[in-house]
């Protein structure tokens, strides 16, 4: 495997780990319910923004089979950021609605990135001589 392939692999794996961490952090905040602080939520919004930017910036470097999935993941990551931002401005019932939407979009983003990983692995496997 050449250097370019290694970088692409590391990049996609890094993005996948970041979306998994984001989902984990949001689900922890949901489980805390009223215990999540403003600082917690601001950190989540920043994390979502950072992962979205990293994923968006890496689309062009990815395997063709993975690009569409990664683009979909970016859409969900941007929605995650938006919903976490809304949760910061709301209280009680509205907070729960926003944070649950953020969790659903974070889950969807992790799913799309893992689908990108699967597509890339399958494409590479198909090319590898048996």
């Amino acid at each position, binding site marked *: 495997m050449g250097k370019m392939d290694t970088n692409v692999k590391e990049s996609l794996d890094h993005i996948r780990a970041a979306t998994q961490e984001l989902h984990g952090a949001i689900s*922890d905040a949901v489980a805390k319910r009223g215990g999540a602080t403003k600082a917690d939520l601001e950190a989540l919004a920043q994390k979502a923004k950072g992962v979205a930017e990293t994923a968006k910036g890496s689309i062009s470097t990815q395997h063709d089979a993975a690009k569409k999935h990664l683009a979909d993941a970016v859409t969900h990551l941007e929605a995650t950021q938006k919903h976490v931002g809304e949760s910061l401005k709301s209280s009680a019932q509205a907070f729960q609605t926003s944070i649950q939407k953020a969790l659903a979009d974070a889950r969807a983003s992790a799913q799309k990135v*893992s689908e990108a990983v699967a597509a890339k*692995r399958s494409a590479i496997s198909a090319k590898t001589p048996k």
Partner: protein
Amino acid sequence: MRNYVAVVFNDTSKAYEGLHTLWQLDDDAEVTVHGTAVVHRDALGNFQVDTKETHPALATGVGVGVGALLGLLAGPAGAAVGAAGGAAIGAATGGMVGATADLARADTRDQAAGETGFVLGVGQSAVVADVSEDWTSPIDTRMGNLGGTVYRRAKSDMEDDVWFDDYYIPDSYLYPYEYIPSGYSL
């Protein structure tokens, strides 16, 4: 190929070993895991899904969702009883839920067993997973070594079921990483 898998174990600790092994197979690029959950059926026949959710209503929602997924995994018999049964059970018992409690019914269980063989018995635990796999042997071999029994349905087959039942595959309740509750250790 995109498949949904249930691996049934006779005890909970083995189920968590199975969960860990599944994610190891992902790390090794043998398969790609999109989501997992661990479910149990207790001595009274109640289903429980291990979830981070602490609110009873939301925990019930997770249970109903994963239960419905198990119902689909069991084949058309399980899909037919689907979410309605799970919703009723979930609402009645809080976090102890599962649409596939219907599979405890003899007629449904027999039909499901005839279709896929998947039934979660009393005292058993299962790892439920959404995976992409080019070969079935990595999961079958590693889970077999742990004493697990693997049941598998293609996502496309499950989509055919839900198409006729006007329902969706509730896989968003699966954790997209290896989630082990604090009460368990490997």
